[in-house]
């Protein structure tokens, strides 16, 4: 009973649904205000969702209907599962074991894979190009992201997010060592969430909507929702790893603190996507390998040095 509650209501599907849509509103509003526009009203994301759900679903004749229909569901499932392993407002996550950090990162990769498969199985040319681009991009940003999240874990000497939170709770101030990793993770997150300047897989002026070109109706709504949820979950992960404070002051303060942290990360992402133009896929890949990966490696070396000389 409790497990069902956790999965469907809190902190699972329903919570992520509401928080994801609010985050989308928050992001769109900030983006619009930075561009000198009015922006949507608060219920716009929900209205968009309802509209999409009520629309007709068209599955291309050439497409494999099972794969085509399964992909959005798998994407959402992966994202909702992830949240149960991330500590949000207390140092304890819902479930935890040593190594859950890797599981979380693995689960967060699944949506990208579903974008690839969904695009590939919809057989449209635009979708296929988008799908290949999504996968190419995955190989570029995933390594720096993994390395930059590895660094704080090294410092805490654990692979468990819950234990990491406890470690940083016990040593307040240590999170400052990971600032560089936080910056790298934020940039790679733009790639994961396919936002400007890394929205290459769905560059609308080149390949229409990329992966999602053939998707419509409920399936499209689910994909959109999974991206919104992924935004929140990934932001929560970053908040848990890099901003581990306000955790032990009770659930109320912790929850407000958690909200503030996530919204801060989302606001930073909005700011970043306002000020850049979209890169080309080759530029994106070389940027990730040339600059982000070495920087992330430096963060790891730095943390090893800190561990060797300061913490002991």
């Amino acid at each position, binding site marked *: 009973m409790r497990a069902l509650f956790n999965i469907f209501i809190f902190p699972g599907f329903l919570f992520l649904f509401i928080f994801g849509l609010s985050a989308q509103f928050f992001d769109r509003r900030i983006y619009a205000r930075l561009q000198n526009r009015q922006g949507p009203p608060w219920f716009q994301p929900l209205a968009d969702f309802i509209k999409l759900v009520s629309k007709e679903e068209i599955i291309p004749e050439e497409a494999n209907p099972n794969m085509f229909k399964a992909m959005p569901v798998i994407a959402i499932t992966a994202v909702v599962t992830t949240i149960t392993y991330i500590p949000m407002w207390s140092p304890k996550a819902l479930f935890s074991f040593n190594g859950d950090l890797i599981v979380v990162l693995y689960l967060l990769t699944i949506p990208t894979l579903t974008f690839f498969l969904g695009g590939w199985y919809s057989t449209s*040319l635009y979708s296929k190009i988008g799908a290949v681009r999504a996968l190419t991009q995955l190989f570029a940003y995933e390594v720096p992201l993994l390395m930059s999240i590895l660094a704080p874990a090294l410092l805490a000497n654990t692979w468990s997010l819950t234990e990491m939170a406890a470690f940083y709770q016990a040593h307040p101030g240590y999170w400052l060592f990971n600032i560089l990793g936080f910056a790298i993770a934020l940039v790679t997150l733009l790639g994961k969430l396919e936002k*400007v300047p890394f929205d290459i897989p769905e560059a609308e002026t080149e*390949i229409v909507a990329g992966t999602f070109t053939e998707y419509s109706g409920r399936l499209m709504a689910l994909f959109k929702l999974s991206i919104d949820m992924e935004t929140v979950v990934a932001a929560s992960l970053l908040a848990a790893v890099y901003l581990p404070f306000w955790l032990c002051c009770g659930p109320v303060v912790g929850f407000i603190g958690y909200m503030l942290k996530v919204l801060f990360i989302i606001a930073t992402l909005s700011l970043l996507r306002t000020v*850049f*133009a979209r*890169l*080309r896929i*080759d530029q994106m890949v070389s940027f990730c390998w040339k600059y982000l990966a070495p920087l992330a490696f430096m963060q790891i070396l730095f943390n090893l040095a800190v561990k060797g000389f300061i913490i002991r």
Partner: protein
Amino acid sequence: MNKHKVVIPIGPQHPALKEPESFSVTLSGEKIMAFSARLGYNHRGIEKACEERTYLQDIYLTERICGICSHTHSTAFVQAVEEIAGIVIPQRASYIRTIIGELERIHSHLLWLGVAAHEVGFDTLLMYTWRDREIVMDILAQVTGNRVNYGCNTIGGVRRDIDPSQIKDMLKAIDALEDRTKYYIDIATKETTLIERLSGVGKLSKKDAVTLGAVGPTGRASAVDRDVRRDDPYAAYDKLKFKVVTDDHCDVYGRALVRVGELMESYKILRQALKDMPEGPLTVKAPRKIPAGEATSRYEAPRGECFHYVKSNGTDKPERVKVRAPTLANVQTVAKMLEDGQLADLPIVIAAIDPCFSCTDRITLIKRDGSRSAKRMTWDELHTYSIDWYRKKGLNFAGLNEKLKKRI
């Protein structure tokens, strides 16, 4: 065909294109192997329509060739007609034509800047430029009463005067726009991702530009120093001082620099024109029937040289009107620019010639006959209908078609 290559259609309906036109690219991975443009998707038959109408009606029809450079086409047409009729327009009218033409250039270039930014995924710049474009649109609406089709020209002069209070507002708007344009120049020369996406993309050497007949900013960005305003001055341009902006980057970045540079020149021209504009009448009387003769007229549209040819036969309707819009001259260069290009660069390279397909394809008019139910026809029905229609007129192509079939 090689199985590693894919052909993808860009258009007629595609988010990168603001107007319908059909392109197809052959890709190998992300690399462009071949590119072809197929014009005529939106053929409208305006030239023929012009022959069926009087000169006065044609001014308004040519104005509707393009939604952005409407003043361009009507001025070019009117100039040709005036040349045939031997009319010299009053000084004040020529200044007003110049002023509206430059305002149009400003709004067109600002529009282009936004579209180009959108093509490379820089929506913030799109929102900014289009917001600032409203300043010049408001001024145009204030002066002419319309935002797009100004209806300002008439044979023998202009229809609307510019009064001192409007001049004051215009100068204020120019100051504001100049300020903003400086900011955009700053962005274009400093913002890293924008420069990454624009420089080195869509190379067109000077030699190719000349061979393919590139006009306007597309040519000038490849160091082809041509501008009708200076080389063959019309309206009041011979009395105004301005610089022809050229650039030797030969790529999309250069084209962007030329356009923002031209914006700055336009402000200079406008300030001079508003200051020097002489008092006097707006029109001279023009005859309804234009004497027989022919004339060509050139006009430097925001996109390049716009060419009009008019032939008259002494009646109140022209015998032939021919329009060569700047995009038709420029569209050939796109295939050259895209050689060894990437798919990601395709939208911006097409956008960099500032294509205006409505200019290039033009119009056909469909009138509803009052009844609401329109009849739908299949292609075959339409085909037989056309054959029958000509047969009723005494023309029978059936025999000719048979002959043609046999020969093939």
